[in-house]
């Protein structure tokens, strides 16, 4: 494992823990007990938090913070620090999974549109978004952008805003522009009753999120070294739970997980090491993530719920905070199919990720009708083939519930690599 050098380490004095491969067998890899949340009792499990369409954690936070506002954001890149610094609760929404029947939104968005756009609108049209005071979108794709304005028309009392994230990182003007965009957001949030987010408040928030991201990176590194100690589905729910909790609470939850996981021992098994690519926005059903592992994959990196950790190093605290945040989007953020940086093609980023994680293969897990991911697949595929890295393409919808065909495909893929 690489040396831990983040603020998180300073905060906790954590020494990278590593279980050597082939550690003693203590527990079966697929019977690892889930990490409890350690929140005020009764502690909900991360899985309960992320699939709760009544948003109990949000309601609870609001009742504990009279007058406090909750701002939901659509994936992927949201400046949560600014929302937090205004004294508001930023909440990452990733659709409704299979928990909501679409009754109204199909008529508004029709065919060939991904599910998350529809379930997000459906959540609104069925009153599920009532605990929220605002909704934030950004320039990730055409469907999400149009959804922003459809939401604006259908929910005139809600604050609905759209952030234009720059697509031309080559010009120095883009960081300045993004700073002006962040200033506009801050002013809008303050106007709707947020606390004044001065530089000190912003720095406090940045520090908290820096730590949160650092712990997440540690968990990912820990998993990379010891994929037999933490299941992909477990890490997934742990990380995604952060979408619904105040950042401090989530960081605490992650620390507990690290301690818990580092203390585990289990035997590794015959599996291939895979990077999962393409699930940065609409989320695959949890059962599909479980299936990957059951079929013989160790997930050593993924872009699930990328919105939680899109800045991949600490945001500097010693400069103007909004400039630092803007520059972090331009220069420190994780590539994905909805972030465009022609200085460095994303297919190079994928190859690097595969090498760094020592992965054997890439599995594309792409939401149906996700045009950005589908486009990227072409160039990703070309580059992987040049590099001789095996890959498999799977398509899902958040509301899918039977995966037999996908299971067979993954099993066949794994077998072809294991017994090659």
């Amino acid at each position, binding site marked *: 494992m690489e040396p831990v050098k983040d603020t998180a380490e300073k905060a906790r004095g954590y020494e990278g823990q590593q279980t050597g491969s082939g550690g003693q067998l203590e527990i079966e890899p697929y019977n690892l007990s889930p990490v409890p949340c350690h929140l005020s009792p009764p502690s909900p499990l991360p899985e309960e938090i992320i699939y709760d369409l009544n948003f109990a954690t949000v309601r609870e936070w609001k009742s504990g913070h009279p007058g406090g506002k909750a701002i939901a954001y659509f994936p992927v890149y949201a400046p949560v620090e600014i929302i937090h610094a205004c004294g508001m609760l930023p909440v990452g929404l990733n659709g409704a999974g299979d928990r909501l029947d679409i009754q109204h939104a199909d*008529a508004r968005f*029709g065919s060939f549109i991904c599910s998350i756009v529809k379930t997000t609108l459906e959540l609104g049209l069925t009153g599920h978004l009532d605990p929220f005071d605002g909704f934030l979108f950004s320039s990730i794709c055409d469907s999400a952008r149009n959804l922003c304005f459809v939401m604006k028309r259908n929910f005139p009392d809600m604050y609905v805003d759209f952030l234009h994230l720059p697509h031309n990182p080559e010009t120095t003007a883009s960081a300045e522009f993004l700073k002006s965009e962040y200033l506009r957001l801050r002013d809008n949030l303050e106007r709707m009753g947020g606390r004044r987010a001065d530089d000190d408040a912003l720095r406090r928030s940045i520090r908290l999120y820096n730590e949160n991201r650092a712990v997440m990176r540690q968990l990912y590194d820990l998993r990379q070294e010891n994929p037999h100690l933490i299941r992909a589905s477990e890490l997934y729910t742990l990380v995604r739970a952060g979408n619904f909790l105040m950042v401090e609470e989530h960081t605490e939850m992650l620390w507990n997980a690290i301690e818990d996981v580092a203390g585990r021992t289990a035997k590794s098994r015959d599996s291939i090491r895979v990077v999962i690519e393409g699930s940065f926005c609409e989320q695959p059903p949890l059962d599909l993530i479980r299936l990957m592992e059951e079929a013989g994959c160790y997930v050593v990196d993924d872009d699930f719920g990328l919105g939680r950790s899109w800045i991949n190093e600490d945001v500097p605290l010693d400069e103007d905070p909004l400039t630092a945040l803007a520059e972090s989007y331009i220069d420190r953020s994780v590539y994905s199919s909805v972030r465009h940086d022609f200085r460095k093609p994303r297919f190079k980023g994928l190859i690097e990720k595969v090498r760094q994680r020592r992965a054997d293969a890439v599995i594309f897990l792409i939401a149906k009708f996700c*045009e950005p991911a589908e486009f990227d*697949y*072409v160039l990703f595929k070309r580059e992987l083939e040049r590099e001789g890295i095996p890959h498999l393409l799977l398509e899902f919808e958040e509301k899918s519930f039977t995966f037999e065909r996908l299971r067979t495909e993954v099993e066949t893929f794994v077998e072809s690599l294991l017994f090659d």
Partner: protein
Amino acid sequence: MQQAGKTEYRGGLHQRQKELMLRWYDRLDVSASTGRPPTVSMMISGNPVELLEGFGALPIYPEINALQLAIRHESLEPILAAEEMGYASENCAYVKADIGAWMKGITPTGGRLPVPTLALCNFVGCNTYLKWYEHIAALMNAPLYTIDVPFMREDRPSKDDVTYVVRQLMEFVKKFEALTGIKFDYDRFKEAVRHSNRAEDLWSQIKHLARKSPSPFDAYFDAITLMGPLYVYRGTEDGVDFFEMALAEMQEKVDSGEGVYDTERFRVVIEGPPPYPFFRTFRDMFAKWKATAVASTYSTVGGLWEFGFRHDAREPFEAVALHMIEHNVTNRNYLQRYDQIERYIEDWRADGLIIHFVKSCRLFSAGQGDMRDYFTRKLGIPTLYIESDLEDPRYFSEAQLRNRIDAYFESLDHHKSQAVVGDRSREQVTGDR
């Protein structure tokens, strides 16, 4: 059953349009073998063609290449070739046709197309453009520059938005100077902006002639004839001459009371791009009902001028930036599009709205169900929602479309006759007889 009407008007402008477009393709062919003039591949939406004039460079428009293939029923082969490369059935078929045609060496005229000197992604609203240009750059091995244009998330662009775009336009100029060794001719650029101003004014006057009853042209199907020169030649004298000629021809038709059909039975607004692979078939479905599109959103992709915007030569860079940010339909937000359509319905006195959902284009189509809800329920406008594609012939279901269009006009006919009984004064205003 109605007799099918005359489906299109063919005048001098059609001949001239053909000449201009062929000359453009010829020059691209020359550039493919000599490297001169330099070329810039860019998108139609909010295209900054004036800047190219400052270099004497030629635009390449992949969208025009793609639509030419579709209109000649030649789009399926390149689409299938692209799908073999890994493109998904859901991916924009314009991109697939363009990339597939490039890989297979297919061009719209049979001439050659050059590798662009620069792939310039003039991003205005369409995120698919970003992908398209990344792919052009990667597959054709062309240098790439993106002009990031802030989307219209407020009613008007901010000063920061304009400054941001102007700075990038200037960086593009520097980059293109470095790539070609040609010094940017500012005076020539300014002159191009002046020409654009004039061409836009003429184009806008033509569009306003469609407010007459009968409208002298179809602002959806015929407008497409005028759109090619608008995007390629706007900043040139040839462009201005073309639009002067077009306006004169249209004005003549207005003066003689000539419409698209012998009578103008219906006036509609059409939203969304046309199904190019079945352009004529689709048009005939409207001709059958003598229905004229008096306005369309698709004809404002490259620029929205009928509400007053003109390039201003006093601040040419700012003018180009404002055109890219605010004055084209693709960079305007969805609710601004609702307003645009509403304005057409009122000021161009339309009877109804046709929403053509195209599977390829989420920029246009994502949310058109909500648009229908707004126009039918909120405003009580008779609205038809139909689906096909702009490039992929596999998504055109002729019988189904015909049935739906027939049913719509039958009901609109009924609706109109009821309205006439109730409101004779409107009959006089619209001139319906």
